[in-house]
């Protein structure tokens, strides 16, 4: 893969990750339920969205970000990881290993997540819906932060 294509994909991966982070965070906050105090605060407006409406976009964004991330993985192994090993940055290396596993588990969770959010929403799946959303949100946040930190240590461009 050429350097310019790698950089373009890395930027696209980051943009998709930002969109995913926004969508999953909004859904995770909204799924906790509305607290109707009568006041129209920023928090109450933020929560007052239809959480189910985010599910399709989240699945698409998660799959797209993961596919692009997977296509960048050989470049990471050939360019970034040697730098981490050379500088004995074991925590950074291990954090990325976790990012890989979390991304895979998140990807494989998507069918269950999709089933939980499929309309009509089943009342008996409310706990599963909330828990799956929060687990996915935690995965997305971890992967976003670790990806950002590792890119700051050594971006993919030479």
């Amino acid at each position, binding site marked *: 893969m050429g350097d310019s294509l790698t950089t373009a994909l890395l930027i696209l991966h980051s943009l998709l990750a930002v969109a995913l982070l926004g969508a999953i965070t909004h859904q995770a906050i909204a799924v906790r339920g509305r607290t109707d105090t009568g006041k129209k605060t920023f928090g109450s407006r933020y929560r007052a969205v239809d959480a189910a409406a985010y599910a399709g976009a989240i699945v698409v964004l998660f799959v797209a970000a993961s596919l692009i991330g997977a296509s960048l993985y050989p470049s990471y192994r050939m360019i970034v990881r040697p730098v981490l090993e050379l500088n004995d940055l074991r925590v950074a290396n291990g954090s990325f290993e976790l990012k890989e596993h979390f991304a895979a588990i998140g990807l*494989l969770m998507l069918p269950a997540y999709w089933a*939980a959010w499929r309309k009509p929403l089943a009342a008996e799946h409310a*706990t599963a819906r909330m828990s799956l959303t929060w687990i996915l949100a935690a995965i997305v946040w971890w992967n976003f932060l670790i990806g950002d930190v590792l890119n700051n240590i050594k971006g993919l461009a030479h």
Partner: protein
Amino acid sequence: MIERGRLLLFSLAASVGYTLAYYFNWPLVIYYPVVKELHLVRQGPADGFPIFYYGWLATAVVIGAAAAWMTPRRWTHRLPFDLGWIVPIVMLIAALTYEKRWF
């Protein structure tokens, strides 16, 4: 439309399958990025370092799809939906435990 129970079973079997795949190193395929080749078995050092990640994911997808496709509906229908979030939490803890060696 695929029923909820089958989607749930796919996720459960595939996430357990992924964990087993990396723990015991059962990649369905192995990618060699230096020579840009996919192989079913390990190659010699001349091909450079291997990437197992894609192979582990492929193993997981095959396990998940097989479980979801082969299990009768009367069983998938009975699966408690809460397993859908309990099993991934266990798998995340397994990953944290496995990668503890780096920290």
